[in-house]
């Protein structure tokens, strides 16, 4: 557990696991934040105190906690993987967000948007096949 992973197959598996964690945490976190912020009502201000007020909403709290977990998993992933690997792979989260927005929040998803979901998934699969780390 404490040894640096050098086997390419293991690096790939470890990267995929952390990418999946980042994706799940971000999708669920954004979903909860949206639900919470829609309950709180429009909040567009530079006053930081207003953002402390929205933390009284439990959906906002859980969403924020999940996004923090996603941030931590993302930082760990970046400690060994390329940014140009991490970004497209974790972009799958946006495809999932569209699916979740459709399935849970009842948002309308057009045919064009479904094509976007398919392209993002395909692109992430291609990037996932490249070596996660290319720098020394």
């Amino acid at each position, binding site marked *: 557990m404490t040894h640096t992973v050098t086997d390419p197959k293991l690096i790939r598996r470890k990267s995929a696991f952390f990418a999946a964690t980042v994706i799940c945490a971000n999708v669920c976190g954004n979903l909860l934040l949206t639900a919470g912020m829609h309950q709180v009502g429009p909040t567009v201000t530079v006053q930081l105190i207003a953002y402390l007020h929205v933390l009284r909403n439990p959906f906002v709290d859980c969403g924020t906690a999940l996004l923090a977990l996603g941030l931590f998993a993302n930082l760990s992933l970046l400690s060994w993987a390329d940014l140009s690997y991490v970004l497209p792979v974790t972009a799958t989260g946006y495809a999932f967000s*569209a699916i979740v*927005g459709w399935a849970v929040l009842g948002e309308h998803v057009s045919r064009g948007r479904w094509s976007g979901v398919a392209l993002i998934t395909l692109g992430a699969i*291609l990037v996932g096949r490249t070596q996660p780390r290319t720098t020394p």
Partner: protein
Amino acid sequence: MKWLLVLLIVCCNATGDLLDASGMKRHGEVCDFRPASIVRLIWELAQNPWVLGGIAAMAVAFAAQMSLLSIADLSFAVPATASSYVLETILAKVILGEHINRLRWTGAALVAAGVLLLQA
């Protein structure tokens, strides 16, 4: 207002990701995930100026994103802010010196096209 927030989110995300990626490479590979080690890692990262700068940029992006989510749907907010990664892939090559082969460029381009379609 929506698009102004999107611009702010894109700039802050790009800055944040580049600083985080540099900072974490300087820190070295994280490979121990026992609770005590995670606490130590968080303590170390709290003293890493690159990571701190990155998180500060992310915090601004996060506040802007909360604002955006309060006035727009999730399916507008998320893909609109996602466009930042197009810029970031180029910056990863130019600034971080990552080697991006044809497969990765193709994948990144497909993701970019997908993100644009998501906004349709």
